[in-house]
């Protein structure tokens, strides 16, 4: 089972490239795709989910071009788009039944799985309410359930935790951890902490191109010995923002305590810190591509 993304590019109307020259090889595991707004995460995921066609390049699922024979991958695909609609007059069970029959799941199997999936995403109480009357987070949970209907080998979830409350976020993270195994999961977010717990590898994407693809530990290693803390006067803050990659600021009585990611010690008063994934992400975004990984 592998997914091969080769020099994929997508041009939108008006000569805007959503992603450009994107290459990545994936095997079983959970890939966390992180990047700022407009980086091209959703564009890439839509291509992988066969919803849009790439303008350039190829994507191969087990060696077969997905643009040429999309149904091959669709059979094993679970996809949660970033923004999707529901049919307001159907309830969760009816909606999932509809999608299950479109995906060719046998009647009995669909019934059993829908029951259990709704328990899994904690939607049992609201299962008979019309979807149009559900809250945003509840709709999102129905979306998660539909992506898991066919026990996908390739699961693509675009900002799955958007709109979920903290408890549901935890539930989803646990679910994700259980899911791993013999499948490829691709999960996007612009929040590092959402991704870092579950992901077996992390890809940082910026302005449509891949900055880095590495295991979380390797990513952390790139900022080892490069994270510092120091206290400066408030008036110096603007200047510090210009000069360093700041990954945190806290106001204190003496001024501002800042957290800096930098190759060299930023000053005499700076004390080294243990790096976090957030530091590594910001460091990557700042454009410091490291050959080490």
């Amino acid at each position, binding site marked *: 089972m592998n997914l091969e993304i080769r020099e994929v590019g997508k041009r939108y109307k008006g000569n805007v490239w959503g992603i450009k020259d994107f290459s990545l090889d994936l095997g079983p595991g959970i890939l966390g795709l992180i990047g700022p707004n407009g980086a091209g995460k959703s564009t890439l995921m*839509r291509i992988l*989910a*066969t*919803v849009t066609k790439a303008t350039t390049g190829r994507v191969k699922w087990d060696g077969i071009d997905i643009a040429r024979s999309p*149904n091959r991958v*669709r*059979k094993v*695909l679970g*996809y949660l*788009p970033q*923004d*999707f*609609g*529901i*049919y*307001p*007059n*159907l*309830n969760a069970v*009816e909606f999932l*039944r*509809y*999608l299950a*029959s*479109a*995906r*060719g*799941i*046998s*009647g*009995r*199997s669909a019934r*059993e*799985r829908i029951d*259990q*999936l709704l*328990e*899994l*995403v*904690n939607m049992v*109480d*609201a299962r*008979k*309410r*019309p979807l*149009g*009357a559900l*809250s945003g*987070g*509840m709709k999102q949970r129905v979306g998660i359930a*539909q992506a898991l*209907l*066919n*026990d996908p080998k390739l699961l693509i979830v675009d900002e799955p935790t958007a709109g979920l409350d903290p*408890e549901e976020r935890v*539930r989803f993270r646990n*679910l994700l951890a*259980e*899911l791993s195994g013999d499948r490829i999961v691709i999960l996007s977010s612009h929040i590092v902490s959402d991704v870092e717990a579950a992901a077996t590898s992390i890809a940082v994407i910026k302005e449509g191109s891949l900055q880095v693809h590495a295991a979380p530990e390797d990513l952390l290693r790139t900022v080892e010995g490069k994270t510092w803390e120091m206290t400066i006067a408030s008036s110096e803050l603007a200047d510090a923002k210009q000069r360093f990659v700041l990954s945190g600021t806290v106001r204190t009585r003496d001024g501002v305590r800042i957290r800096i990611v930098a190759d060299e010690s930023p000053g005499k008063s700076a004390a080294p810190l243990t790096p976090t994934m957030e530091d590594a992400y910001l460091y990557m975004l700042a454009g410091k591509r490291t050959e080490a990984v």
Partner: protein
Amino acid sequence: MQTLSKMYQLILGDFRERTRRYSFLITLLATLFFGYLVITGKWTLRLGEYRGVYNSAWVGSLMGSASTMMLAFFGFYLVKNSLSRDRRTGVGQILAATPLSNLAYLTSKFISNFAVLTFMAAVLMATAVVMQLLSHVEGGFNLWALVAPFLFVCLPVMALVAAMAVLFESIRWLRGTVGNILYIFIAEFAFLNHLLLENPFLDFGGFGMFIPSMEEAALAAYPEAKLGIEVGFVGLIEGATDGAMNLFRWEGIDWSLEMVPLRLLWIGCAICMVAVATVSFNRFDPARTGRIRSRRRAKKSLPAAEVVSGHRPSARSWSDMPAVQFRFNFLRMLTAELRLMLKGYHWSWYAIAVGLVAVQLAVPYDYARLYALPAAWIWPLPIWSAMGTREARFNTGQLVFSSAYPLSRQFPAIWAAGLTVALLAGGGMLIRALLVGEGDHFKALLVGVLFVPTFALALGTLSGSRKLFEVIYLIIWYIGPVNGLPLLDFLGATDAAVEGSIPLIYLAMSIVLGFSAFLWRRRLC
């Protein structure tokens, strides 16, 4: 002052959003084509076998009336989407949270509707002016004679249409198909009713002004003439071809300021309609849209104080999940499609639907065929018109089209579901025809059963919106099965249609349309 500038921004934004749509371009081309038909005499006004030469006065008045009629019929559907767009995109809720008043909001919508309609009318008028400039015109080019009908006849009616669209969109039950059907009847009554011509206030197309003066001119040229009145496409008017016409010169009517107060009255009516709309406008409050049925019932079934989103640790884990088994079953897909199609109507809707089929069985055969059958075929309009548009309307395309084989599984199910509804709608009559042994009636109706859902699916897939099918279907349904024009009688409700092999034409069309629908759908998948 601030309100005015806000309104200006709203109008501008709205107008830009609309004119940048692909559908606007299509409408513009269709409008130009219609202008061309008028100029070249394919759409005509004639007094029996007499008509005026195409000088500026005649062309101006003809174009003025024709564009008024055309835009009143179709322009309404073009502009009746601006509130629903705001509702769908959520922009409405954003605006609702600003201090902008309902009146200011609806007035902006009214003005932007009016701007779009005026733009279309201006295009038609410009076509007339350009064509007159390019060709040799008898009696010389007269700009005022070309432009005045546009100012005095067309624009005031456009104000009424623009306001009507706002009003219909603000009233819940007029927002959808019901409103679309009702409007066709209003427009038809307003324009095609000769009685109204006598009353200048109700003379929307301006015929009441032009025709007496034209008749005078015709009688001056042909004192013996027997005059009549016919307006419309040449092909649809029975009788002589254009060659057999007797021509006369008509210099137009005197456009005077006396006409202004009456037109202002119409604009006043339009403003009143907008004011009335503010009463029923719900400011995009989703709790008051009433879209979702069975909500109350569902709530009742829950313990009173329970919060539905209440957290519970889920007992399940993924490892308990039964293995998935794949076996595609077309019948199950069809049932799912039918459920999706038929859910969400008020119980009275289903009751009337059943009633309409029962009537086909109860009344004498000829009545059933001529009246009950056509009546039953307007009722499922909202169901058919939704075919092929659902993914676009509800933004579920990404979910549906990323399922395996959407073209060979889900698409045929949509079509078959529409066909099932058509079979039900004509069911009573089909049984009757079989029992009586009228094989031809049976076959003709079967073609109708095939044609309507296929047509709906094709137009829905093409446009992604219900309105295109609704408007076209309403017109052919009204002229064909209801009024008995054989060419448009897709149900074979008239003998002329059945004997004239009209069903064969519709059969061929169904095949072509079905194939096109498939190709259009393929683009999406």
